[in-house]
């Protein structure tokens, strides 16, 4: 019940449980018709959500990439051509012109909630 209430407040929709996620690696979910790559970091109780579509390789593969960190920031390396994307902002570390959509997420107990409204930091910055 409380999960649902919270879901309405934050406009998040339940997507899956923690058990469906893979620690420090990715899975993919279908949210409002968009493919969203989810990366779970149990120690931070955090799930990062970025677009699953690789704009360079033109395929839905980013959830199958490799997670790493550079100078403290978490990134995801594309499995096709190895471009790295900041998990927090969606920005490509190897080409700042490219910015992926990201989604806000919450863990409520075992339940993962995702705000279906995508965010694009690149657009935010430019219109600011």
């Amino acid at each position, binding site marked *: 019940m409380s999960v649902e209430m919270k879901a309405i407040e934050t406009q998040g929709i339940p997507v899956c449980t923690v058990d*469906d996620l893979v620690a*420090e690696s990715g899975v993919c979910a279908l949210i409002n018709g968009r493919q969203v790559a989810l990366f779970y970091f149990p120690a931070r109780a955090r799930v990062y959500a970025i677009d699953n579509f690789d704009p360079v*390789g033109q395929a839905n593969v980013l959830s199958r990439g*490799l997670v790493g*960190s550079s100078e403290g920031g978490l990134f995801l*390396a594309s499995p096709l051509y190895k471009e790295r994307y900041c998990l927090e902002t969606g920005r490509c570390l190897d080409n700042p012109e490219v910015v992926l959509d990201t989604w806000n997420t919450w863990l409520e107990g075992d339940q993962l909630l995702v705000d279906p409204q995508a965010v694009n930091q690149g657009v935010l910055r430019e219109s600011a």
Partner: protein
Amino acid sequence: MSKTALVVVGNGMVGHQFLQSLADSGRLNEFEVTVFCEEPRLAYDRVYLSSYFTGATAEDLAMGKIDQYREWGLNVLLNERVVEINKNDRLVVSDKGTTLSYDKLVMATGSYPFVPPVPGHDRDHCLVYRTIEDLEAIKASAAQGKVGVVVGGGLLGLEAAKALRDLGLETHVVEFAPRLMAVQLDEMGGGLLRSKIEALGVQVHTGKNTQQIVDGEHHVHRMEFADGEVLETDLILFSAGIRPRDQLARESGLAVGERGGIHINNRCQTSDENIYAIGECALWDGKIFGLVAPGYAMAKVAVAQLNGGEAEFAGADMSTKLKLMGVDVCSIGDAQGRTPGAKNFTWLNEAEGTYKKLVISSDNKKLLGAILVGDAESYGTLLQYMLNEIDLPANPESMILPSVDGAASAGLGVAALPETAQICSCHDVSKGDVQGAVAGGCCSLGDVKGATKAGTGCGGCVPLLTSLVNHELEALGVEVSHDLCEHFAFTRQDLYNLIRVEGIHSFDELMAKHGKGGKGCHICKPAVGSILASCWNNYVLDPKHVILQDTNDTFLANMQKDGTYSIVPRIAGGEITPDKLIVLGEVARDYNLYTKITGGQRVDLFGARLEQLPEIWGRLIDAGFETGHAYGKSVRTVKSCVGSTWCRFGVDDSVGLAIDIENRYKGLRAPHKIKFAVSGCTRECAEAQSKDIGVIATENGWNLYVCGNGGMKPRHADLFATDLDKETLIKYIDRVLMFYIRTADRLQRTSVWMDNLEGGLDYLRDVVINDSLALGDELESQMQHVVETYECEWKKTVNDEQALKRFRQFVNSDKSDSNVVFVQERGQIRPARPEEKEIEAQPIVMA
């Protein structure tokens, strides 16, 4: 501040380079850019157009990418041509009726092929060679004919001739001038080129003036020449030079040259200061530049000018280095020796088919020009001498004469080059730029390429660039860091030893004891994952190891460009029973997989979706198959010939040995992939000498070859030991491979590894055969551990509920990836191309 309205007319190579340069300048956000592109697709590489006939797709040739343009915020209008420029009101009007106002306008309208106005030039099957649409027309026309003629023997004409030949036509080249490539070559060079091209089956007719084209008797056309000769053909391709596309400029009242071309000044401005012209449509100092590099230079000047900079266009060197139908042809500077007092050195070697000529100044001091046919090796050096007016050595001929007694021919040290020397002509990068990049922190060739773009165009300058980068690094006293990455201040070899000696079994443990913190990265994680697997051979999909794997290892399959996977079951030694072959066929048929035979004597099944992998493997395992490790940096295959069992010439049972070897080493992970082959006699049908480990049967046992490979830089394996019995052979292979795993860099093939071992082959023999490091027993027992702990990863995975959970497209839906679309080709599936997926590509308008 309001943005500058910038309209770019034309999106060819130079138009694209202009946009790229503008983006690189970081000031794109100051402009509201609209790009008109009359073709149905964005800029593509016209230099490599002929590769379209040898397998390259429009996509491969693409330079402008719609997503990239979208990221840049450009307003792109495809299929739309500007038909009017109103200079006074600063408006452009398109053929679709779009009217746009501009503050600045850039014309990059390029050129069109010149078609001589001979009677009959406009008959059907008379075509030109400029756009992808032209190529489609040529392809369609060629399919109906047997003979093709290219009119024009310049560099474009010869490219076009290659295209016709690739299409299977009997190909002729008709040239008005008395020789091929009359602009770039002299008589002797043109003559040698002609003989080389004729040897390739293309017939050359020089000194031919076409009078008219009429109906042929045996073919579609008959070409009649001024000398009374005739030539019958089905297809005529005009490639007799280019003319600037200046009509729009002419009609808009901009100044154009008498023989065409839009007049520009050093700032690339036309007679209207708000309108720029760049590339082949522009006329500078009475010259049209028909090469891409000067066009790129103009694009950069225009960008600098728009950004308020001072850069000016100062002309361009027209030296060229080409490969025409596989023949190297270079022309530098005053190749014809027209400078008063110029002297020539020439060297013609008809046996080898090489011609080299130097044109030097009357005082013997400077190089004015050069021609190279058949051997382009000294192009880079000669070009630098010419461009930078470097004093020639006392005996300039040494630069083109072959070295007689093994002495190195006179090269040019990079130290001798002035700072202004242009290293990369495609991207106009000077020696000074490279020095600046190195001083600014670039410490590898890759860094310098990324920072300056040098070497990323045609690639011709990479050897020179490499030695310059190395020279600069040494000069700065830079000790190149051998740290694996930002997470570990160790080499791969160090990490291997730490993991071995301290018995470390996980990435986290290694990071805690020896790392610098963080989650690791795409460099250290797979490297450590590989070392752990080489040492302890644990299940790679164990939760603590799975996060280390590259995607192919994570899903135990090879990801293809569309995100689907290919599956390669092990077929040891290439031996397979009919029943198992039938199973492969049935599985491929049932799952509609594209099927192809690999170079390693296996069968590759393509187009499996992530969620299908476990099911497919379930069937393969039931039929007795094991994983083939095609996805891993690991032992791949042992190829074999049929051997003495069947072959009349076979000396020993190569198939039996290949199967034993493959079963011994299967699953072994290493710094890079490892391929083997076994041949049953010296005829070497298994091509063992091109493998990391090659074995060839002799009358007295087996000869062992090591450290060969095919691929990008092929290298023959070296003969390591002769006439071995099987036990000794296995012992040596154990030791060589484990020593490789212990001491190689990450992603280093055995060939490079051995070349970098101090002492090379002799040292390796000493370690392995003479046991000079007393490591032999240790290496063998480490290998024995891997052999004994082998298990098929797929067999384990299909029975592991936890591991199987990852093999689904969505955690919250049973749907499949809708972006995976196949079409039929030659009776099988292949991934649909973007245009086949009907992705809406235009018009794109982004904020």
